């Protein structure tokens, strides 16, 4: 996971909020000077600075962006994750499988469903930390058949995100290299991303695990699992209700 650097420091505070910050920050600062209150002076200066520059560090950490912007996900917001895998299978077939977004929840553990509403629009439902579900609508903004799919989420989405998946031929006849790059603004921003990292759900690891399942499926026809296996702490009564095969279809069912 990479926190995206705030390079050109574009404003993230709305103009009206900035005006309010200038007024209240200025008043607090002057009040501090008059009464010799250093804390008030410092706080006043910080709020005044926020108003004058339009840049708020707290907002940034929390993933809040109130300044007007024509993009869904201002490129300086949120976190970035990327992962890659090499799959010993022809590029075209993997691309076709991926392009049917309904297939993605089969190997992406946190996706609940994807519905394609038309050729470039789709509705996504994912399960996040603590069992919450998050929904968003996505639009394909760039597509080169067999090579690239780029998308971004649409306004009104619960998670603003943008990403791309690229398919290239691996050298030496080793199949297809798949690279996923994802930029998203997690719930509670960078603070939220750090928190989820503490609890062991690093986005890069998740994407990498998802890609490995895709690889397993294409190379072996099944996804490795031990889910439903018994051990010395499984109650015997659980045995009867255990499910059989996992949810992946066979290769011949999904390939054109």
């Amino acid at each position, binding site marked *: 996971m990479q926190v995206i650097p705030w390079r050109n420091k574009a404003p993230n505070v709305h103009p009206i909020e900035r005006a309010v910050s200038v007024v209240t920050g200025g008043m607090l600062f002057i009040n501090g000077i008059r009464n010799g209150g250093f804390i008030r002076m410092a706080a006043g200066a910080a709020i005044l600075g926020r108003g004058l520059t339009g840049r708020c560090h707290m907002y940034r950490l929390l993933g809040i962006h109130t300044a007007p912007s024509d993009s869904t996900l201002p490129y300086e917001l949120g976190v970035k994750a990327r992962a890659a895998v090499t799959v010993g299978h022809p590029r075209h077939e993997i691309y076709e499988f991926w392009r049917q977004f309904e297939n993605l929840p089969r190997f992406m553990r946190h996706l609940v469903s994807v519905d394609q509403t038309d050729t470039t629009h789709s509705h996504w439902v994912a399960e996040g930390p603590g069992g919450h579900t998050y929904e968003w609508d996505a639009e394909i903004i760039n597509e080169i058949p067999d090579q690239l799919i780029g998308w971004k989420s649409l306004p009104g989405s619960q998670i603003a995100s943008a990403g791309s998946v690229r398919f290239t031929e691996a050298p030496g006849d080793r199949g297809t290299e798949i690279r996923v790059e994802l930029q998203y603004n997690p719930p509670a921003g960078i603070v939220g991303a750090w928190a989820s990292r503490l609890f062991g759900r690093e986005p890069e690891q998740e994407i990498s695990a998802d890609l490995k399942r895709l690889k397993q499926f294409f190379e*072996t026809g099944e996804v490795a699992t031990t889910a439903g296996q018994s051990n010395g702490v499984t109650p015997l009564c659980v045995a009867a209700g255990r499910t059989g*095969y996992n949810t992946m279809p066979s290769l011949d069912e999904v390939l054109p």
Partner: protein
Amino acid sequence: MKAACWYGSGDIRVETVPDPQILNPQDAIIKVTLTAICGSDLHIYNGFIPGMERGDILGHEFMGEVVEVGPKVQKLKKGDRVVVPFTISCGKCFFCKAGQWSLCDNTNPNAELLEKLYGSSGGALFGYSHLYGGYAGGQAEYVRVPFADVGPIVIESDLTDEQVLFLSDIFPTGYMAAENCNIKPGDTVAIWGCGPVGQFAIRSAYMLGASRVIAIDTYPDRLRMAHDMGKAETLDYASVSVLEELKDLTGGRGPDACIDAVGLEAHGGFEYAYDRAKQALMLETDRPGVLRRAIMACRKGGTVSIPGVYGGFIDKMPMGAAFAKGLTFKMGQTHMHNYLRPLLDRIESREIDPSFVISHRTTLAEASSHYAMFNSREGCTKVVMRPS
């Protein structure tokens, strides 16, 4: 069914657990007829293997009868008598196709955990922690075997279970350790550790053309087995200076190849207390005493072959000696699938009877006490268990 389950360091109990099920279409269920405790199980027993969970079913050396196959299993049939290799391989990925079966890309469902630790993950193993996939092991009455057409080898001859069981791990592991030594006629091979893998490495080194094999250990029964069964010259590290003796025995050259069949829990040597203390303080995970001595003993341009298991970080590695002498290192989990057929042929042709390493025969119900006995190493080289 009954299974030997791990509940913590030194705590292994035989419990009744639900029978395994077919979970994937290429799975088979095996009814175990004979299983064994491996030296590497003792690393789990002693709590040196991370990623274990309470209740995990142990065991990666087992054989039995196929009782159920998944819908995509084509070769294996109900009723087949099979030995199952301890590494799980898909047979389709880049590594399997290259014959590096234990590095399989596709069998470890927890690959991302091992990736975080090691940079990338090899294939899964039976009963060897969740880092290696968390597959239930074979010290049980039944076991689920994934990729059933890839791993298990069918035994059609009338050989006994005891004669073929060790194809599951220690015979191929000892054999690959010797093969990794790149033995040329006239070569001398020194082998640290006369446990079961060491015993098979001794036999294999001779099979591959070594002129002399020198075996190093301190337990009298193991040294005797190396001498009597393996025809090795033996050194007791507790009573002689191994490095000086090896130098002398090889006319000042040093052994052409050295095998570390001990791994991360080495004993002996002046630095043992140092490593044990650092290990206790978690400043070092593995005690590499044998590896250090193998590097120091090996002749210039020689090979150090490491079938012994290492799991983490080592300290005071004599890299300068390794570099100055231009040593070659070969290591890793055994690429089991390469060896099953050729080694079964050697057993069928009566060139070797692997059952010579067995010192104790018991039932699965006695697993707990036999883990403790094997761990003490006193008079115990190999335990085999019948599930009932």
